């Protein structure tokens, strides 16, 4: 994973709450077996509407999405994060993220920064009054800067550290492989195993 320390780019105000992952990427795009190439799929239904924010200049070149509360709800599809990244987004700001989306973002180096809704409103106004204004997201100081606004954001310490260092999650866990092996030895025998397969006798 690439390290993330700070990013500056055009902010995109998405004045909408409950942006679920079906909106971020509809299910039809989930048939692909790759991890990249989803830029065309991002918000594909909404992008058919010429007035949608990502169809307007200079927002097409945006890289910081500023969204309403409850962003990324619904399906666990990590494709939502891949699509945002493939389009060019480096960070998403919201006052509340769905848990799974936030987790997926952290694994993929997309910064999900939680701000107060008041600060989101201020940034929306700034971006709407002066389209093309850049937003700086600084993970070191945990602040967002936009015009004259400087606002703190929340992110859990562990995700922040992994993003700053660009560390692979699986590699970190495998450092504790001995603990896993020790735990496995303590599991009771009544816990089920999928193998060998046992099948229903009926039907």
């Amino acid at each position, binding site marked *: 994973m690439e390290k993330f320390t700070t990013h500056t780019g055009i902010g995109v105000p998405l004045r*909408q*709450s*409950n942006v*679920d992952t*079906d*909106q971020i990427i*509809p*299910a*039809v795009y*989930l*048939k*692909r*077996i790759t*991890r990249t190439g989803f830029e065309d799929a991002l918000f594909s*239904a909404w992008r058919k509407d010429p007035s949608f924010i990502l169809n307007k200049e200079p927002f097409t070149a945006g890289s910081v999405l500023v969204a309403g*509360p*409850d962003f990324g*709800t*619904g*399906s*666990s*599809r*990590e*494709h939502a*994060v891949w699509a945002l990244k493939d389009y060019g987004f480096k960070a998403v700001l919201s006052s*509340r993220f*769905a*848990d*799974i989306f936030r*987790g*997926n973002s952290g*694994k*993929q180096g997309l910064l999900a920064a939680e701000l107060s*809704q008041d600060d989101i409103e201020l940034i929306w106004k700034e971006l709407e009054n002066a389209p093309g204004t850049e937003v700086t997201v600084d993970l070191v100081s945990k602040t967002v800067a936009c015009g004259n606004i400087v606002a703190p954001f929340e992110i*859990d*310490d*562990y995700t*922040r550290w992994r993003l700053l260092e660009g560390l692979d*999650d*699986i590699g*970190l*866990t*495998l450092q*504790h492989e001995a*603990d*896993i092996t020790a*735990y*496995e030895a303590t599991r*009771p*025998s*009544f*816990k*089920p*195993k*999928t*193998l060998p397969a*046992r*099948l*229903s006798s009926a*039907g």
Partner: protein
Amino acid sequence: MAKTLAEKVWDAHVVRKGDGDGANAQPDLLFIDLHLVHEVTSPQAFEGLRLAGRKLRRPDLTIATEDHNTPTLDIDKPIADLTSRTQIQTLRNNCAEFGVRLHSLGDAEQGIVHVVGPQLGLTQPGMTVVCGDSHTSTHGAFGALAMGIGTSEVEHVMATQTLSLKPFKTMAINVEGTLRPGVTAKDIILAVIAKIGTGGGQGYVLEYRGSAIRSLSMDARMTICNMSIEAGARAGMVAPDETTYAYMEGRPHAPQGADWDAAVEYWNTLRTDEDAVFDAQVDLDADTLEPFVTWGTNPGQGVSLSESVPSPEDFGDENAKAAAERALQYMGLEAGTPMKEIRVDTVFLGSCTNSRMEDLRAAADIIRGRQKDPNVRMLVVPGSARVRLEAEAEGLDRVFKDFGAEWRFAGCSMCLGMNPDQLEVGERCASTSNRNFEGRQGKGGRTHLVSPVVAAATAIRGTLSSPSDLDPAPESAAIRTDAA
């Protein structure tokens, strides 16, 4: 220290205690007892293992099936859509390469992953269960800590059989009283979501408690836990009891003999301690609950079926007001329209929320001997091939077919509009599934979430209806005629 059910299950799975506070403090590392895999969220994870030269650590705790992307017609023919066929074939290749048990299309145990796990007896109380699917919360009905994960975490579980998890808060959802006839588990959970909102459960594990929950069957408890994610909670749980054990006993992977006794002894400890404290509490009165239905484009936008479409002005919060306006426009609804006057084009009975035997039986009991509205198309998609076989053994397929419904093969189908079962632009659907998002069931489609009995009554009248709106069925047909 007194603990909640969720805390007990968590504590029993800690492989390595977290480092506490601090900039690089790793959270608790938890062991995963069961990993369910399907074709859509796994290919990139398998590829990740391959690229890193890693093995899948515990094939014996992993099971795969095909559900999201499979057709529900002509399953004996090659899948027509080439991209879908490639994805399914990729799962088959990956399972063969990594030694994972797979139930493919055509197999009697194939079906929606959250129907398959419990029916095989693989889902048991006190387990940790994960799957690259947000509705993994379903398995919480057994008193398991079950949660949906993304593909990176799928790969992590494949490689390590563990997950690093941030601590959660606990919320008790107390449902006391007795449900009235025609009111079901689906109405309970839709009412809970309307009450706490789509973000209300965020950061929490929900525990459903109270007399109304205790009296529910396992199928019904699964319906409730299934939609915990729609309230923002990653997991929902019900403490195991005699109902749970009766369901488990004799299932292929249920413990046997001395193992069964040891298991039950352990399962009996999986109850929230009397003096344990929840971080939050929500109360719902089962006695006064009515059939519930959504009017908008998120599962929190719901009302009782006897009410009317709300007005954006009814919402104080500016974001909720704007969301309501947008939802009404998308749904093609006028504020103030009685919900029961809304006409639908399609009725979908299926999904991991409501596609089990009890759901099919309840719907069949409503439609038996009655006529379908000729303008309504009804799709019945059993949750698994096993459910389909059982339903056919009871003659339910005949009931649905005689009614004019389409009797399909098992899968996720029209719940998520990934396979060919999709709504057309502007088409309105009463659906027993879990999400009414814009375009969820097909681009431009409009979804009203309902229970199986409301779905059945709606198929008869053509407008959103509860069973109590129906004329009495003809005498002779009201008696169940088991065709088997």
